[in-house]
């Protein structure tokens, strides 16, 4: 069993994880190995987390890698790398793209406005793997003037750490990618294979990375009161439709009323768009206990 090698390729739907996995498996086959590869299709591909387990050797049984069993973890996206880190064996190799793909679900804290995305900080990975190879593959791909070959660059890095012959990789790439992109993919593969670490490990640039805390000088109120002047409201419904937090509704008398003041973020769309100046939004002293961070 020890002569079976386990690889884990992880990322986000649309990053080319499955295609990359197919190339790796094809390279294994061309190197005369038995190989199995398990992947995700269907619902999870809709922007969700995607992975490909690959195991190769003289005879492979399970297509799945056990926790703590991966010789190499290739993360095509930062947070996915962190998610799968427990699958890396002690002393295993972590190849990680520092690019962040922030999911909509990470931008939903409308109280504290803290993104639910882990900080991109390569230093935190020190000691978590036998070898950490971090680079911003998308930025490297941009250097090749071809955004889509980020995954092939990472494959090149992977190839530099595996014992499969270079020819098997090149044949596998040529046989798997669309014919018109063979040349650029082979260049990307060579680029990745030649990358030296840690000189190139610094995240080069470019990724959306909303991790800064709220600037204190901009710090507004965290609780709001919505004042409605009942006599001025004519029940036009504009504020009800426009409120992003669904704080308002028309009552039985066709007048607007506040049904969820706690959800108000103070955007004041209702105030600005009311044709009759019947609504005003006021920030009030925060009632939440999270004031420590805000005090100046």
């Amino acid at each position, binding site marked *: 069993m020890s002569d079976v090698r386990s690889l884990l390729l992880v990322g986000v739907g649309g990053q080319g994880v499955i295609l990359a996995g197919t190339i790796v498996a094809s390279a294994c086959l061309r190197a005369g190995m038995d190989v199995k*590869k398990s992947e995700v299709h269907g619902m999870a591909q809709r*922007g969700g*987390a995607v992975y490909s387990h690959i195991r190769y050797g003289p005879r492979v049984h399970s297509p799945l890698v*056990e926790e703590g069993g991966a010789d190499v973890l290739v993360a095509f996206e930062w947070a996915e790398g962190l998610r799968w880190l427990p699958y890396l064996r002690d002393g295993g190799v972590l190849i990680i793209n520092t690019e962040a793909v922030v*999911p*909509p679900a990470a*931008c939903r804290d409308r109280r504290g406005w803290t993104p639910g995305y882990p900080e991109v900080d390569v230093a935190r990975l020190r000691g978590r793997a036998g070898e950490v190879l971090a680079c911003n593959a998308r930025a490297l791909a941009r250097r090749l003037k071809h955004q889509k070959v980020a995954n092939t660059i990472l494959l090149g890095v992977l190839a530099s750490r595996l014992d499969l012959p270079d020819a098997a990789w090149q044949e596998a790439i040529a046989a798997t990618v669309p014919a018109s992109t063979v040349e650029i993919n082979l260049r990307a593969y060579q680029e990745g294979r030649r990358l030296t670490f840690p000189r190139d490990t610094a995240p080069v640039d470019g990724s959306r990375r909303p991790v800064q805390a709220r600037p204190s000088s901009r710090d507004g109120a965290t609780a709001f009161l919505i004042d409605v002047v009942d006599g001025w409201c004519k029940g036009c419904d504009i504020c009800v439709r426009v409120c992003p937090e669904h704080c308002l509704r028309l009552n039985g008398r066709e007048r607007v009323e506040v049904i969820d003041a706690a959800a108000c973020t103070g955007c004041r769309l209702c105030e600005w768009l009311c044709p009759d100046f019947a609504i005003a939004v006021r920030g009030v002293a925060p009632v939440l206990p999270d004031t420590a961070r805000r005090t100046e």
Partner: protein
Amino acid sequence: MMVLLSGNEAIARGAIEAGVRVAAGYPGTPSTEILEALARAGGGAYVQWSTNEKVALDVALGAAMGGVRAMATMKHVGLNVAADTFMTAAYTGVRGGLVVVSADDPGLHSSQNEQDNRLYARFAGVPLLEPADSREARDFTVLAFDLSEEFDTPVLLRTTTRIAHCRGVVTPGPVREGGPRGFERDPRKYVMLPAFARDRHAVLLRRLAALAEYAETSPVNVEEMGDPAVGIITGGIAYQYVRDVLPDASVFKLGLTHPLPLRRLREFAARVGRLIVVEELEPFLEERIRAAGVAVEGKEFFPRTGELTPDLVRAGLARAGVIPESRSRAAAREPAMPRPPVLCPGCPHVVPYLVLRSIGAVVAGDIGCYTLAAMAPLSAMDSCVAMGCSIGMALGLARAGTAPGPVVATIGDSTFLHAGIPGLIDAVYIRTPVTVLILDNGTTAMTGGQPHPGTGVTLQGTETRAVDLARLCGALGVDHVQVVDPYDVGATSQARCAATAHRGVSVVITNRPCVEAPVKIRDAPFRVIEDACTACQACMNLGCPAIAWTDGWYEGRRRVAIDGPACTGCTVCAQICPTQAIVPIAEAPGPRAHGAAPAEVAHE
């Protein structure tokens, strides 16, 4: 030559080698790629997507009755739809070989339940083959056709996600020659009048007894004798995990899991100390073996929910005392960030749900990508149970009279054709006031964009006549049918108002194609004018993956930016932005290259 095939591709390869002539199915994860691979291969087989799984099985059964080899493919829940035909096809038997492929989804990677379809084999009384990897998927498919003809029975070939979507090394064999057996009139066999069917039930039981004898000598049931202290009985993917975790154990690997080779299992039991069954989901093998009087352990160590993994097999065998407790990895575990599947940028399903939520409608949903609208931020779906359920459930909700808002059924085009039409007829005929929103994106999107009868092309890409959904609804008697562009927020909102105000059954059909399939639609992308964004979060309520927070602030709230390369240019966010801060990149003031990352923002 050895090739790398997924389990699904291997089944297609096996079917080709077995000389399949007719194959039909309905797309469903994890079964979809079987028919796609078969259609790609060309050759002599007639391959088609059917309107639903029952029609697919009807087509295959008819072909088998006509004396050619036939196959029907579906996901596990699809066999529920086809079960009516399946149960009685076990009575009629076949003439040409008939293989029914059920691809189960333990762990619910992309399904609404994780039912164990091995139980269908016992229920119907048909033989059940379970491959353990791609090589066996090919081998067992060939065997399934042979068994089907030898024993005159449909054969259930059952895979799981880990077989269907795992690639492995396969050595293709030769394509079998051999003409069709031809049609032969035999009403006592194929016309299931009660008088004939009574006889066929007895035939079925005799056939099962013969199959049980076959199981005793079948080459796909294999004893691998090793250390006799513990004997493991297993099959399918669980076999692979057992072999990795217990390389030296004695293992009885079952390829034919119904009917069971009970004599051989008893002999195996006598040769080993403890006997443990390792199987995914239901204790299907365990209960049969125990009922045969063999002392066996199993589900007390392994979960009955979810899919097995090597880790779970290791943990279960440790609990059983077979191996020492595995080392616990004390490695600091990052709290994993949730990354649920989301609707794609530019998905035409977003706006219809946005406008439904704004009126507090009670929404009976259905199966498709749009089921994701149940999740935040759209949060606009109240039920999703099975294919086509939405319309009937909406009728029930309306009749219950307890809904706090208008009752609306939402259903995709493929799902509507699959099982939604009878519900709509019901609504019209009984005059139940509901609104049905048909989200017509022209394809079966969730499974990767397969054509359906509303698409106008076949699986092979040849043009055919498309069902006109609006005219179909009119013909059923719906007197309010409106087609609307779901990228037009105002028009969609008005269509919703008119439909829910209509006294009677109303249908609204959205008409934008899926942005991902069959062709990727990419229009001019948009950007956010930083200074004009008031961080109101209205666009964030769309849940578009191309829009995210930046480090820019406005009055204590985060501003947003659009990821240019991800934006499809659907214009919806620009329509709802109250400050017109979202504009096409080409028209935006200031230098900003297409695809550039959002500028760093300094706002202090």
